[in-house]
């Protein structure tokens, strides 16, 4: 992405808590109007990064720009951002209307104008009858919406969301995901969304930054993160992945030939152009991209012989584990149960696995 596209620009930011490095040299650019997610397991620094955008934490070094303005001298209450807290932080001594109108007090609006804006917001979050309720009379989902309305009414340039759906049950969470996505499209505000739930991040986001140990591992669209992860960490954090050792034997016409241990010869266009022939690499394939057959598949060279190890029936799909010669780790295969499954396949039964061209992806680290 070009620097000029960046609406939020995080430049070489470090954050130390005592001797603990929470964020190390993170640089991320976020575009205007984008639904951007920070994804990682707990302790990866995603919340710290979000709090630095809000101004509750200051970077130890580096700079954050929002709309071209450096933020280091701007206190949190003057930043053009608003936040939806993980705990929602609904003011318990105020009713719903006053919670939503909280930030408007500074704007010196007429009472009528303020009431109209609050009514519009209550309409938007589909709680028009709830204005006079107190926080303790609301369910988790309702609190979440009010926290959202309270931030959105101020029309911030950026809305920060700290795992806002984490406390909701599965069904409500899925519903809120759809609503959140639709809302973001309606209001057109840049959303920065923190989550540890990869599925949630994939569903909602335009782009995702995968984080681990205070670093950004990859910043990309959901499709590219899933299809072209840059390294093992990203590949194993998002979805499941089979990893193999290999060596590049030749590159021609944007296609790499790889000698893969246990599989033989594999070609793929999914590789980094910097890699040269003769390099040891790691090569990977998603379980659902492997095809399981009893007989040797014809018309393809992309195949290998193996032995059935285990099978697990999950209803809509089944997981199989297949042993290949020369590698200790069984290969995982996921297949949809298009036909009625006829019990589990016998162990040790010889079977074939095959794959389409370009199903494999070469990862950076060998």
């Amino acid at each position, binding site marked *: 992405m070009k620097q000029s596209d960046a609406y939020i620009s995080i430049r070489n930011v470090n954050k130390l808590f005592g001797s603990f490095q929470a964020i190390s040299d993170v640089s991320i650019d976020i575009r205007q109007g984008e639904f951007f997610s920070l994804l990682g397991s707990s302790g990866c620094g995603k919340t710290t990064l979000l709090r630095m955008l*809000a101004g509750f934490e200051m970077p130890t070094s580096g700079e954050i720009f929002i709309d071209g303005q450096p933020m280091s001298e701007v206190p949190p209450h003057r930043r053009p951002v608003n936040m939806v807290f993980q705990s929602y932080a609904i*003011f318990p001594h105020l009713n719903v209307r006053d919670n939503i109108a909280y930030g408007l007090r*500074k704007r010196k609006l007429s009472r009528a104008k303020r009431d109209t804006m609050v009514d519009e917001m209550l309409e938007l979050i589909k709680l028009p009858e709830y204005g006079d309720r107190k926080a303790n009379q609301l369910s988790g989902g309702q609190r979440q919406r009010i926290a959202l309305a309270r931030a959105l009414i101020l029309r911030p340039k950026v809305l920060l969301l700290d795992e806002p759906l984490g406390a909701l049950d599965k069904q409500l969470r899925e519903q809120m995901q759809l609503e959140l996505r639709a809302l973001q499209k309606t209001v057109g505000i840049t959303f920065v969304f923190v989550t540890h739930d990869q599925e949630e991040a994939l569903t909602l986001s335009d782009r995702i930054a995968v984080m681990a140990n205070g670093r950004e591992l990859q910043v990309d669209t959901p499709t590219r993160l899933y299809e072209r992860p840059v390294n093992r960490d990203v590949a194993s954090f998002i979805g499941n992945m089979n990893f193999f050792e290999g060596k590049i034997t030749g590159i021609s016409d944007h296609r790499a030939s790889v000698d893969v241990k246990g599989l033989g010869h594999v070609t793929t266009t999914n590789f980094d152009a910097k890699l040269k022939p003769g390099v040891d690499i790691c090569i990977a394939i998603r379980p659902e991209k492997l095809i399981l057959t009893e007989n040797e598949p014809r018309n393809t060279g992309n195949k290998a012989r193996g032995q059935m190890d285990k099978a697990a029936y999950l209803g809509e799909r089944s997981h199989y584990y297949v042993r290949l010669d020369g590698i200790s780790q069984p290969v995982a295969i996921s297949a949809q149960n298009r036909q009625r499954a006829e019990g589990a396949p016998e162990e040790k039964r010889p079977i074939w696995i095959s794959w389409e061209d370009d199903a494999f992806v070469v990862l950076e680290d060998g």
Partner: protein
Amino acid sequence: MSGESATSANSGSPKPPGTGRLGRLLQRSEAARGLSLLSPTLLIMFIGVAVPFGILIVMSFWTQIGFGFDTSPTVANYENFGERPIYGALLKRSLWMSSAATAATVLLCYPMAYFVAFHIHRNKMIWIVLITLPFWTSYLLRVFAWKVVLGYEGVINSALMTLGLIKAPLEFLLYSQSAVVITLAHAWAAFAILPMYVSLEKIDKSLLEAATDLGDGPVRRFLRITLPLSMPGVISASLLIFIPTTGDYITPALLGGPDGAMIGNLIQKQFGAINNWPMGATLSIILMLSIAAIALVFMFVTNFVRKRIS
């Protein structure tokens, strides 16, 4: 399950819970169970509070005759209170001094409670213990300590004179209303800090961050979030100090001088030197009613203000 099981319980076998007549009664009624748990306290409250209070009320309608009482009921004592301005004046002064002491205590202790609640992250318990440390000494000792501090040749006067800031000792320091207010404010500080600390400590820190995030600077945030949410602590601290200090008689007796005397001193004298117990009882009851009325008005006003702020 009747008397038999109770007797068999006596013969060594363990008695299952809830057997016997009393046990069954307890099991049936939640209220009975609650009352039985409360009963020791209730008994003490009855003997120690309700009975003397009843005696006080009855006695306030009696008349003192020499060393005995005329027990025919009369409201003469209450009329007497209305007719002689000294009583009303003393009551007014007591309420005023105690209000001043309460306001001073709450205002001075709030920052301390705030500091411990928000700026101490480790060993909070030690800070709380340190704050209450002066209160491990006797009340009387603390009052005497202030006598030493405020006295004619006390710490403050001699320090100021040594520095050459004053030529003669400041006389208003001791034996005055201000001496009583200062001492009361100090003596009751722990009762103000603890409830206020508890209510400040309870405030979810993310609420403060949310207020900041929504555009409030530190002052506005304090007024709109911290203060309203800590009001329960402020109110209970105020009542905890106002109620006992109004009737206090030790501090005004030792530090008040003639100007600083409070109604408590007069009540004490009625039961002592003046030897008019019925009048003392009447004054006690009037004092109690005044405090109750003020406390009610105070609670009503704060409730009203709280609703208006939000």
